[in-house]
């Protein structure tokens, strides 16, 4: 697919985010609630969902940044249905995943701190506020690539 300019690239990445979000949000939410239920603390499902949303937004934002900064060619080889990094680019994929994990862990800290600070508040008040705030944080994190672009172009 040919991408004409910056707007095309932005639309392309946003389209991917929509498809991934449609799958990831229900999946991660269901797993979080399932794990919390199995652990005997169903209420933790809401907390897990809040962290899921924040981490998802950060992961999508970081994947966009790495897509632009650290993209590399892949090819299909005989005997495997999986695409693999072309020769000489093996470390790029691992670096992208590890970089994303590290950045997401940092980006999720505010949500985790918010969970800890509101630990003593009643769940009826706490959860309806935390989950939308985490969703808002997720949406805000999605602007991270543009902020990075602005920061890179700024002159100090």
């Amino acid at each position, binding site marked *: 697919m040919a991408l004409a300019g910056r707007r095309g690239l932005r*639309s392309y990445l946003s389209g991917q985010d929509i498809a991934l979000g449609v799958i990831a949000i229900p999946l991660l939410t269901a797993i979080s609630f399932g794990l919390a239920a199995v*652990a005997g*603390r169903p209420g*933790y499902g809401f907390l897990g969902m809040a*962290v899921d949303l924040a981490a998802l937004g950060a992961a999508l934002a970081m994947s966009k940044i790495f897509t632009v900064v650290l993209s590399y060619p892949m090819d299909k080889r005989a005997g495997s249905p999986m695409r693999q990094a072309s020769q000489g680019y093996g470390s790029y994929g691992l670096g992208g995943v590890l970089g994303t994990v590290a950045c997401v862990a940092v980006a999720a800290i505010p949500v985790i701190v918010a969970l800890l600070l509101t630990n003593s508040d009643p769940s009826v008040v706490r959860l309806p506020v935390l989950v939308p705030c985490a969703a808002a944080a997720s949406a805000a994190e999605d602007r991270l690539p543009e902020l990075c672009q602005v920061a890179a172009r700024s002159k100090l």
Partner: protein
Amino acid sequence: MTALAPAGRGRARDPGLLGRAPGTALLRLALLAAIIAALGWLWIRSLGRALVTADTSTQSSRIRGRALPLARYGLRGAVAMRFWIYQRREPESLIFWGLTAVIMVAVSISSILGPVKHPALLLMSAVFAPPSSGFSTPTRSA
């Protein structure tokens, strides 16, 4: 003899994990075997579909005689729809989504099975699952 007696009794009475709860241990083994069998079945099914089925997906719109459902929303909609199809079709994508679930369970397993149900482990699983998924691979959109 009296000093050694409690230890001796303790050793004699320790039946090991299987002796303590054979039903639970067998249940865990059966659960693990069922999970492995299910993942293996999914893997074989995905491979079979990828390797044997004729790939006509790139012409699917032409064959159906209509555009992709979200194509009217421009490039963003077309990419979203096409990427949605890829997520269902590619074995690589299915594996990554399965991996996401496995990572979440693995990170929080001690919180589930252990005596101390600490919420931090459940939250950690939520942190580490999204970036470990396939979409963190930069080449997805390269």
